[in-house]
C-alpha cells in the first residue's frame, strides 16, 4: 500500500504558493487605488492614458515585423538544412545558441557601437530594435520549426510532391506548410509573448514599446503599473496556453522555455 505522499504535497503546495502569491498580490494591489475599498480605478486610469495604447500598438507592430523576418529567416533555413544540407546543422544550431551567449544588454551595447556610425547606421531607425528582437527570437523559432520538421518525414513528402509534378512553391505552400502549422504557430506565439514584454532592447535603444512604458509609469504612479503588469502577464499566459493547446497530443511535446530578460 502506498503511503499518502506528504512531502510531494508539501512541495507542490509551496510551489503553488510561490506561483500565485505574487499574482494575487499584484491583483490586490491594483485594486487598492482608492482608499478603503477595492475598485477598478487603476484600470480605468490605465485605459485612459493614450500612451498605453500607443506603446501597446508599437509593441504589436514590432512583434509583427519581428515574427515576419524571423519566419523568413528560420523556416527556409531549417527546411533546407533538414532536406539538403544536414552538414550545416551544427553551425545553424550554434548560431541559435548565440543569443544565450550574448545577453540582450551586451548585444545592444555591441549593436549601438557598431551600427551607430557609418557605413551602416541603424540606431536612428527602428531597424536596430527589430534586429535585436529577431536575434532574441531565433532560438525559439528555430527550435519550434526544427522540432516540427523532424516530426514529419519532410524528405518523403517533398519527393512525393515532386514526383507528382509539384514545383517548389506548391510544395512549400500545400505540403510543407500545413504539416508545420503547429510548429510555426508555437514559434510565432512565443516570439509574440517575448516581444510584447521586452524591455532591454527597447529601453536602451530608446524606442517606444510596452515594456518601457510599464517601467516608466512605475516610476510615476502607484497601482496603475500593477494593473498593466497583470495585463502583460495575461498576454504571456494566453500565448503559452495557446501553444500548449496547439501542441496537445504531439509526441515529445515541448514546453517553450524563455531566456534571460
Amino acid at each position, binding site marked *: 500500500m502506498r503511503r499518502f505522499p506528504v512531502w510531494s504535497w508539501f512541495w507542490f503546495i509551496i510551489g503553488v504558493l510561490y506561483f500565485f502569491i505574487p499574482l494575487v498580490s499584484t491583483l490586490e494591489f491594483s485594486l487598492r487605488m482608492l482608499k478603503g475599498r477595492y475598485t477598478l480605478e487603476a484600470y480605468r486610469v490605465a485605459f485612459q492614458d493614450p500612451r498605453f495604447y500607443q506603446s501597446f500598438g508599437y509593441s504589436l507592430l514590432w512583434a509583427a515585423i519581428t515574427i515576419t523576418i524571423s519566419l523568413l529567416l528560420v523556416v527556409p533555413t531549417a527546411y533546407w538544412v533538414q532536406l539538403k544540407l544536414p552538414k550545416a546543422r551544427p553551425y545553424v544550431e550554434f548560431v541559435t545558441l548565440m543569443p544565450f551567449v550574448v545577453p540582450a544588454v551586451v548585444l545592444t551595447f555591441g549593436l549601438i557601437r557598431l551600427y551607430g556610425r557609418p557605413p551602416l547606421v541603424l540606431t536612428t531607425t527602428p531597424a536596430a530594435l527589430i534586429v535585436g528582437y529577431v536575434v532574441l527570437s531565433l532560438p525559439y523559432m528555430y527550435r519550434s520549426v526544427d522540432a516540427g520538421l523532424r516530426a514529419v518525414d519532410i524528405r518523403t513528402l517533398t519527393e512525393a510532391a515532386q514526383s507528382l509534378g509539384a514545383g517548389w512553391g506548391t510544395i512549400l505552400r500545400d505540403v510543407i506548410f500545413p504539416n508545420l502549422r503547429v510548429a510555426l504557430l508555437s514559434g510565432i506565439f512565443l516570439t509574440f509573448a517575448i516581444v510584447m514584454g521586452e*524591455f532591454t532592447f527597447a529601453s536602451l535603444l530608446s524606442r517606444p514599446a510596452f515594456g518601457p512604458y510599464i517601467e516608466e509609469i512605475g516610476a510615476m504612479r502607484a497601482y496603475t503599473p500593477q494593473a498593466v503588469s497583470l495585463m502583460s502577464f495575461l498576454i504571456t499566459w494566453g500565448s503559452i496556453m495557446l501553444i500548449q493547446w496547439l501542441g496537445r497530443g504531439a509526441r515529445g511535446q515541448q514546453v517553450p522555455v524563455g531566456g534571460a530578460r
Partner: protein
Amino acid sequence: MAVERSPRAETGPRQEMGDAPSARPPRRPVTWTWLGVVPFFTFAFLFLFLPSASIFVRSFESLDHTFTFQNILDLFQKSDIRNAYRLSLQVSATTAVGGSIFGFLLAYAVTIGGLPKTVRSFMLTFSGVASNFAGVPLAFAFVATMGNAGLVTRLLEDVAGIDIHAGGFTIYTFWGLSIVYMYFQFPLMVLVMAPALDGLRREWREACENLGGSTWHYWRYVALPILAPSLLGTAILLFGNAFGAYATAYAFTGSFLNLVTIVIGAQIQGDVLYNPGLGNAMALGMIVIMSMVMSIYVWSQRRAARWVR
C-alpha cells in the same frame, strides 16, 4: 534525387573553399546547395558575430585608440567592477542552486511523487508560463507582494505582528532580488526535470531491488547518476539565465544593485565608466562567462541524451 556530396556542401557557407584541385578525376559538379542558408548566416554574421567581434576588438582599445591590455586588467583590479561581477555571480549562483533544488523537488513531486495526474499537468503548464514571465511586470508583481505596501508585508504585520521592513531592511537587496529571480528560475528546472524523471524506467528500480539495493542505493547509484547531466546542465542554464538578466533587476532595484548588466546598461546610456574601452571589456567579460556556461550546457546535454529519451 541525387544526393549531392561535395566538400563544398559540407563546409559552412563563409568558409574558404581553398582546396587545391585534386589529382583525382572526374571533377565533382559544382553545387549551389549552400546558397540556401546564406541569408540566415549573413544575418547572424552581421548582427551577432560582428557586434561580438567589435566588443572583443574594442576591449583592447585605450582612450587614445591604441592597443592596451589595461581594460582587461581593470576588470580584475577596479573594485567597483569586481564588485559588480561578484554580485552578479552571487545572485546567479544562489538562484541557480536554489532554483535547481526546489525545481527538482517539485518535478519529483508531480512526476513520481504519487500526486494525481491533474496536478502534474497544472504544474507543467504553470511552469511554462512562469519561466516566461520575467522583466518589468515580474518586478512590479514582487513590489506589490513584499514591498512597503505589499500584500505579504501587510499580512505579516497585521496577522503576525512582524514588520519585515523594521531595522532598515529593504527588499531591494541581494536576497530580495534572488527571491524575484527564483520566480522564473525554478519553473525552468521543473520543465526540464519532469520529462527526465519520467524517463527513469521501472526496470532499473526493480533491477536494483532484485540485487538487494535500498531506496538510497537506487538514488545514489542509479537514478542520480543518470539524472546528473540534465540536472547539472539545467542548473548551469539557470545560472546563465540570471547572469544575463537586465530588465527584471533594473525595474526592481533601479540602480541600487550594481549588477554587471546594470552597469553595462548605464554605460550605454551615458559613459558612466568614462572609458568606452572598459565598457567593452565588461561586455566581453559577460560573453566569456556565458560562453563557458553554454559550453558546459551543451556538453551536459550530450551526456544526458545517452540515458534519457
